[in-house]
């Protein structure tokens, strides 16, 4: 085994972030380079556990101890082989995953966990750099055709798996470019888009067909799909954002976070934005409602757009600095997280409930009224704690309620579950035979790593449905 005593000899080390001044002036990745040698040292910290909780903590069940060890031994090519066994796109998860694996790392019981995520990222980056990543075209084709709707992480993962099983895959994407949330939802400073393009080029070389600007149920007829494909896999995401139902919501200046982020991503990609539709924080007093990851992405984006001020408000109380006792190891810890965006400025408010919005005579937003509240589930307002904020723009980052229903889902007539997600059986099949679903569309809003997991699992089921068996992993 790698280094049995590595964890006692080395400290956890991860790539440094660039200085705030530096990074606020561009949209590039906030992290500095990290040397291969440093990665090897981090790999050496892995204890090669008899029961590697990381492996279970990771939804993809990445075989983390193996590649930690391989990296330590300088066997990078073997490492990427093992990493790719369970994860189609380690460059995505290595970049944006919150790393539940690290939360479950055994070393984390009494010290800093192994820097799994950076090891993962560095393995795949090294592999691209060395030219080890080549398109893997199937040896033979089955002749079966599958339409995958949605090109987010679950759709892409499923596409790659099913293509490797020899099926003909067409991925339908309503936008002009492929990638879904990866492309439009995540800011560049967290995921630069060349990473995505690089992978999509590979997928195309492997023989996957991408149909862009193809909005099924809008400009592509659902019936046409049903008749021309042997199976359909719905990976349309959970795109319906949660709204804020308070007086004044209709005032101008309140936007959904996803629209704000998408526009910035398009802008960076060179798309022209109609001035009337521009959502820009520049020079504005911004309030972000929602204290999660999307909120943090908005925060970083606002600062890069040079907002005048930014508040981020969260209804839940402030979590403790350390792992809360209610979420013991190896669970995902309830604790305060400080993302790069939080370092860059802004005010974080906790236990705050927005009560109403006010505007000026033009109907422009001008003020937000709020009250401080008690803990869940009641969120009882604390008398006398009411306050107001002057505000020019509000971004709603309160999560998503489920997939968009009108269009595709309605036309198909698939059954939905109680939460409004597409309902499937244990084989990922919807109420309609030969139609499957995976990703956020099926399980609701979640992480990229879950989307990839869903895509892989659904692919196996689709393959088995078409072939009678499947030896997809």
């Amino acid at each position, binding site marked *: 085994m790698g280094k049995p005593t590595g*964890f006692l000899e080395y400290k956890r080390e991860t790539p440094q972030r660039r200085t705030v001044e530096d990074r606020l002036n561009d949209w590039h990745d906030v992290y500095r380079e990290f040397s291969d040698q440093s990665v090897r040292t981090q790999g050496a910290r892995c204890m090669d556990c008899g029961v590697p909780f990381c492996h279970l903590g990771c939804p993809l069940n990445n075989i983390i101890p193996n590649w930690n060890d391989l990296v330590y031994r300088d066997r990078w090519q073997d490492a990427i082989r093992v990493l790719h066994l369970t994860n189609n796109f380690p460059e995505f998860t290595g970049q944006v995953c919150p790393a539940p694996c690290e939360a479950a790392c055994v070393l984390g019981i009494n010290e800093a966990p192994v820097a799994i995520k950076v090891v993962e990222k560095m393995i795949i980056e090294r592999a691209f750099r060395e030219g080890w990543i080549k398109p893997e075209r199937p040896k033979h084709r089955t002749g079966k055709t599958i339409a995958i709707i949605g090109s987010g992480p679950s759709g892409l993962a499923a596409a790659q798996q099913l293509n490797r099983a020899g099926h003909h895959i067409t991925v339908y994407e309503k936008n002009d470019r492929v990638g879904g949330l990866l492309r439009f939802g995540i800011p560049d400073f967290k995921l630069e888009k060349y990473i995505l393009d690089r992978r999509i080029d590979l997928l195309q070389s492997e023989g996957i067909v991408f149909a862009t600007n193809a909005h099924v149920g809008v400009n592509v007829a659902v019936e046409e799909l049903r008749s021309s494909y042997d199976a359909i896999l719905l990976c349309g995401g959970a795109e319906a954002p949660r709204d804020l139902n308070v007086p004044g919501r209709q005032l101008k200046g309140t936007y959904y976070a996803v629209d704000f982020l998408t526009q910035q991503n398009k802008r960076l990609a060179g798309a022209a934005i109609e001035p009337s539709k521009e959502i820009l924080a520049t020079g504005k007093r911004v309030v972000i409602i929602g204290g999660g990851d999307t909120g943090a992405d908005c925060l970083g984006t606002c600062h890069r757009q040079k907002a005048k001020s930014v508040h981020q408000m969260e209804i839940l109380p402030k979590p403790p600095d350390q792992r809360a006792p209610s979420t013991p190891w190896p669970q995902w810890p309830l604790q305060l997280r400080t993302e790069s965006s939080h370092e860059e400025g802004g005010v974080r408010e906790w236990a705050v409930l927005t009560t109403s919005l006010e505007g000026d005579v033009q109907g422009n937003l001008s003020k937000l009224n709020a009250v401080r509240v008690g803990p869940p589930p009641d969120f009882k307002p604390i008398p006398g704690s009411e306050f107001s904020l002057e505000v020019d723009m509000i971004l709603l980052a309160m999560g998503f309620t489920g997939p968009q229903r009108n269009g595709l889902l309605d036309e198909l007539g698939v059954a939905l579950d109680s939460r409004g997600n597409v309902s499937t059986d244990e084989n990922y099949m919807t109420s309609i035979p030969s139609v499957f679903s995976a990703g956020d569309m099926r399980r609701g809003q979640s992480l990229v790593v879950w989307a990839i997991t869903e895509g892989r699992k659904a692919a196996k089921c689709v393959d088995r449905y078409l072939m009678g068996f499947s030896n*997809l992993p």
Partner: protein
Amino acid sequence: MTPTASRDFPLYDPKNEHDACGVGFVVNLNNEKSHDIITKGIEILVNLTHRGACGCDPETGDGAGVMIQIPHRFFVGECEKLGFGLPREGEYGVGMIFLPVEPQPRFQCQGIVDRIVQEEGLSVLGWRDTPVFGDTIGRVARASQPYIEQIFIRTGLDMTRETFERKLYVVRKRVEAEIAASDIKDKGFFYIPSLSSWTIVYKGLLLAPQITNFYTDLSNPDALSAMCLVHQRFSTNTFPSWQLAHPYRYLCHNGEINTLRGNVNWMYARQSILKSDLFGEDMKRLFPIVQPNVSDSASLDNVVELLTLAGRSLPHVMAMLIPEAWDADTTMSPAKRSFYEYHASLMEPWDGPAAVAFSDGRVIGAILDRNGLRPARYLVTTDGLLIMASETGVLDIESSRVSYTGALEPGKMLLADLAEKRIIPDDEIKEKLSERRPYGQWINENQILLENLPDPSREFGFSPDDIVMRQRLFGYTEEDVRMIVTPMAVNGEEPVGSMGTDTPLACLSDKPQPLFNYFKQMFAQVTNPPIDSIREALVMSLTSYIGTERNILDETPQHCHTLKLPHPILTNRDLEKMRRVSQGDFLATTLPMLFRVDGGEKELVRALDGLCRRASLAMHSGYSIIILSDRGFDEDYAPIPSLLALTAVHNHLVREETRTQVALVVESGEPREVMHFCLLIGYGASAVNPYLAIESLEDLSQRGLLPQGLSFTEALHNYKNAVKKGILKTMSKMGISTLQSYRGAQVFEAVGLGKELVEKYFTGTSSRIGGIGLDVLSQEAKMKHDAAFHPAPTTDSQLEPGANYQFRINGERHSVNPTTITKLQQAVRQSSYKSFKEYTQHLIDQSRGLYNLRGLMEFRKGTRSVPIEEVEPAKEIVKRFATGAMSFGSISKEAHETLAIAMNRIGGKSNTGEGGENEERFIANANGDLRRSAVKQVASARFGVSANYLVNADELQIKIAQGAKPGEGGQLPGHKVDAIIARVRHSIPGVGLISPPPHHDIYSIEDIAQLIYDLKNVNPRARISVKLVSENGVGTVAAGVAKAHADVILISGDSGGTGASPLSSIKHAGIPWELGLAETQQVLVLNDLRSRVRLQTDGKLQTGRDVVIAALLGAEEFGFATTPLVTMGCVMMRKCHLNTCPVGIATQDPVLRQRFQGKPEHVINFFFYLAEEVREVMAQLGFRSIDEMIGRVDMLEQRQSVEHWKAKHIDLSSVLHNPPVPMRFGRRCQIAQDHGLNQALDYQLIDKAKEALERKAPVEFHLPIRNVHRTVGAMLSGEISRRYGSQGLPEDTIRISFKGSAGQSFGAFLAKGITLTLEGDANDYVGKGLSGGRIVVFPPKDSKRIAEENTVIGNVVLYGATNGEAYFSGKAGHRFAIRNSGATAVVEAVGDHGCEYMTNGLVVVLGKTGRNFAAGMSGGIVYVFDEQGNFSSLLCNRASVDLDPLDGEDEAKLHRLVNNHFELTASQRARTILDEWPAMVTKFVKVFPHDYKRVLSASAPQQAVPQTIERIAKEVPVG
């Protein structure tokens, strides 16, 4: 009558019976017959009574008997009374015949005897109703007593005595066969103890003192004999058997034949080629030579009889069957080596442990097997009496009459020839035998060596392109390569792991398994010892001889026309050489072992049948080597599991009786780990070519995955070494020394293989729960074939994860998995019973998969429940819980003490493990918490086992075996031995510590009775428990242990944890506790022994359901180790062996220990939750108390709805069987054992030493002593320790002088302040565990003998001594001062293996030593007087010691000790040395262990403690 395995006794198998005993003889060397000899013989027998045992009925012994010369004068008189005359001596033979009691069947049997006697040309003179007195024997014995008659048969006309003797043999064999085949009622009674014109055997289910009262013949003054051979039996069970008493026709035996199954199978296989001019046509009528289903001793006797009657002398036969360890003995003369090597080509050794006494009426003698593990002491008087017995002092001989005394040495023979009227020395016997034929020349001319065969023109090379595909085909996993093959290639030994196994049995696994995984290794426990294959390498051998076997009754040069293999692992080149061999009769052919994979079972059967047919054909065409090969697989043909193909051919040829004509060699991609090789060899392969394992090494090498500088050639060399060491170790676990005896010995048990499969292909192997058949095997082969030829996309470059050793999602399931660990830790930390229920629910929920056999059980439905309030409270139930034996050393101080505190708080029991215990812990903390472990373990190394340790216990546990590595010892490397551990273990910081595989005072079942007696003497208040590991036959061992007066028997499952153990042991040795416990309960109940002993079980018990099932199967108490560790924070790192435990449990690293988070409350929470869950199940089942529940196996049923593709074939009916016995036979412990302590001499000692005990006043007194006085001084020592702790009393406070022959364990655990002086001699185990006292033994003052040439003390003296002094004027037996860790001793000569494993202390040997001196010695100093100058070159095992000259300090120390010795013993030897000191002192050699030297030269003690963690992690403990 002996019961056989049957519907009524499903888990009992008579094959598992063991016996051991006291054995002895007395002979008048002048061949003068007298009645006195018989009387003396019986006196020996009576004085060996303590070596026998009795069962449920204290008046019924296990058997006793005598063999004498035919008392002619007596019979003449007796027969006259009956109306028939006897001819002259030698012209008639006498048969002792056991007959059915009822007249009708009795007459039928007698009729058959009469007829066959006539048919063989002899005549019946008459029958004599042997007078016996049934009233004098036990109730049980009486109930099974046969009708006993004697038959007198007249020799035929012109028959020589030899021909007559052979005819009597033919008669007996014919009669036996005919009656066995008849349908005569009660034919089970029929048995012929002896039928000879020379000797007669009187034996039965008797206790020694009963024999003369029962057989009045023996007390008749007219009954005369010049010799009397006696035997007292101790058997592991009490099924009444008159027949199994010894002596047999030629021998009686103390010990056991380990290799029996192989020996018997090979005997059967060679029957067809047996030919003898002496027997001519009669030969066929002797079959089967070895009677089926008899004991090991009886089987050996059968073969001895055949070989002797076919013309070899009895000593020749004994030397051939029980050879010395000649292979590695460089001191042996070439002629003698040739004699042994020649006979090795004829027959594999019958491996002991054995002390065999034998006689044919003309010679009488004894032989010890190569290991010398049984005691045999002898004494010759000036007037020509030779007395040999397991013990000295069995006859009272005044010292002036003693000419000399001795102890038999390993492999040596003691022989008295009544014709020559003298004792023939071993050297002379062997020399004569060696000169019989030009054996050396025959070998030179006929034997072929593999290395001398011409190199082949081509051999198979490495094919890298498809290696992954082929690895997948043979089911290689990623772990196989990473964790098994690679470490073997790098380190040259098997990899080590920890924490036991928690994966499903192969038959419950969802994955295709290698067929190998359905087998479990058997191992030696109690009834025979495992061997230390490393430290005692001189007895081990991997050499084998292959080729066509010839008639063993003949002796020609052709017999050694064999191909000699130094070991059974063949490289591709070796195999190619063999394939092309064309020397002499050798010719090889290759047969493919493949089947058409799409055809399933049908094709597999067809292929196997075809293979067998082709093998027969090849054999008949003159091929002598058949190579079974799976190289030719392709897209359509898959390999047949190599073991299956091998056994199919093997069994087919055995049935055809042609098996010995060919050698079977396996060429397969399948074998890769040690277990695989062991199985192939154990089922008859002569050699194995593991070509894919070899290629895998080359692949690793080419891909640069071997450590820098390690070439493929070296890697292969290492790998082969690892396999060889592993095979030796596996053999030695079973106590088998030579590969030849291991081959075909089938010392495996199948778990989960179907009856049909086993009967046809693994004939004779036990498989008790049924299981899969060829259909599943073919399916598994197909799954692997598919994985190779139709791999999943993206994964085709990879192997399956395996996950047998480390958890992986898509690998094997583990019961201690992320979910169970997390839920359990949450439950105990947050005091959440809800989490606990989630934890148990996860394990119980079968939809997640089966983990173990109990997963296939369910509680009987429809029982009447009781309100839970009425169920025994949890606080009572937790008292039945114990934590497992984990030593301080394997786990940290913090973890060890937390467990102890928790268990003491709840009234359960924690266990010290084998590392001793710090005396500070004997005193309670300020808050009342006691850190002392209630259970003190006594393991083979006896670390820290002193009188004070023993008295501070509620229970003393003798650890025979450990679930994770039964049959193995262990090793704690020096750097792990810090100051505290060293203090607790009475050793030196920095000096490595070895635990020997066996307890050196338990080689046999009667030995454990002695150790139990020893421990009970020291601490009569403690109960004694014996820890066994579940294996086939553990029930009969347990019965023996119960009869040895254990209070508790622990049946440990195979899954138990470990700090460090070879992976193959963790995975492949031992069986689940469900099977072992059920067997034990059944056998104990059947024998009515259950009520005397409590049963405990352990082995990954995790839930309340587990506890209830264990109780229903028979357990009263329950042990837990892994689970409590998890409650204290263990996360199953499985890195215990690396000392890097990140949660501070299994580590001694001070930094890591600080991370320990466990609290006693966590452990207590767990046990109470567990008890609560037990209560819930009890309420549901309607039990109010645990006692009601014990053994209620009727409350369990096999789950019917099992869909699992393999598990559905399992049949648990034998496990869930309820033995039909009378109600009065208890099913749980109700009666206390009678330890017989009240006869202890120590009561007198304590009484006389009262003043000293109470007031520390000096006392002195004298007493006579006999061999029946055992363990003298121990109880007194216990008293002292109890009062004064380890400090004891001031030196010499109690001085006791004895005169006579002391029994075993003289001065055991002798405490400080006592001096025992013995004028006379002593038996084995003198000064065992010496704890500060002083022992002095010297020969009688009036003796004229030369002390250093006469044996004064027995074997295994000062075993595990921690402190004190001993002076012995005379010679000691084997293993003197073994594992000495502190005593100072002077002795004048020692036998083999002196000072083995010694770790501390000082020993002076003033004379000769035996071989293998200082093996495994790591500490302390020995000074040896090397008068002959051969000590360093021949006798000392220098692997771990230096031999240095003495310096000034040494000389001063030595002088002082020799002077002491002289003063205390008046030794002549000492006097001589002192007188010529300057000259003598130069002849001394200082034995200085490397470890100790290193520590001393580092001088600063802190150097001894671990320097860096890095070092610790690198040096993995093995052993």
